[in-house]
């Protein structure tokens, strides 16, 4: 980096038993660890036949912030616990804590997708009111869909149907109802990039009217 000379220093300890305690006591202690580099690989590998305890104890009358910030286009944070018996305790004591499921979190993060389509219907007819293809580089998770058929003379409505289909002919859910229906899915439907989603609304009626369909979910 810069015009400084390269510097390499290593601490290598080889022995049958090594102890390297760091004991700092003082009225005021600073132990900054400043790592700057164009490329950094910081790994902490702990390999032992037996691990007694790995503890990070932070005790203070006042703690400003403990931040774990992960900023990346894509990130995976895995916590893998492989043990015959494990206890995971997360104890949070705060006036306000927000824990969000993905659909709600996506809305807060602005990655939700909400699509509404409409068309006019003729006698005893229906229409594809949404024709949408998942953009390249994304996956779509649909967690609700539905539709209504608004007829000029509602009294002659004989029911209808909303169908959500993924391009390829697979009809996911034909639904019967009177003048409209909406479903919230407990398990979202995953649709990959390039796949086409069609929402069809049918209103069985001898009158003309408006068909409206929708689905919503989030993109990853």
């Amino acid at each position, binding site marked *: 980096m810069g015009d400084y000379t390269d510097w390499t220093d290593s601490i290598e300890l080889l022995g049958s038993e090594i102890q390297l305690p760091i004991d700092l006591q003082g009225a005021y202690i600073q132990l900054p660890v400043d790592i700057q580099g164009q490329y950094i690989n910081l790994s902490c590998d702990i390999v032992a036949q037996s691990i007694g305890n790995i503890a990070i104890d932070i005790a203070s009358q006042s703690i400003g912030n403990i931040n774990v910030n992960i900023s990346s286009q894509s990130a995976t944070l895995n916590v893998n616990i492989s043990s015959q018996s494990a206890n995971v305790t997360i104890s949070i004591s705060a006036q306000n804590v927000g824990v969000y499921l993905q659909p709600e979190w996506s809305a807060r993060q*602005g*990655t*939700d*997708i*909400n*699509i*509404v*389509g*409409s*068309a*006019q219907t003729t006698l005893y007819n229906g*229409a*594809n*009111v*949404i*024709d*949408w*293809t*998942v*953009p*390249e*580089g*994304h996956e779509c998770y649909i967690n609700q869909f539905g539709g209504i058929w608004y007829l000029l003379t509602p009294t002659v409505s004989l029911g209808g149907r909303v169908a959500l289909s993924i391009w390829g002919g697979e009809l996911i859910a034909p639904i019967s109802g009177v003048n409209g229906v909406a479903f919230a899915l407990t398990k979202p439907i995953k649709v990959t990039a390039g796949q*086409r989603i069609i929402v069809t609304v049918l209103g069985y009626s001898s009158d003309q009217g408006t068909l409206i369909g929708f689905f919503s979910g989030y*993109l990853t």
Partner: protein
Amino acid sequence: MMDKRLYRLYQGDYNFMTQEWQSDGTVIVSLYKHNDDKIHRLHIKNLYQENEELIKDEIVTAKVPNHILNRMREVIDNASTE
């Protein structure tokens, strides 16, 4: 080459989309995002087909009317002085 005004449609750069299917088979697509008062309206012929064609596009600004904003400010100002 695709009309660049259609790029947003294929990028997925929106949170809301409406598709208004017309009797002639064309579709009026509106795209907008959270916290954005600009609605991109695209009138498209043969949506997603090989011969897809953009007939017209426009940016519509969707703002809260000034008289409503003024009322909101008045409520906040008065509440803070009471």
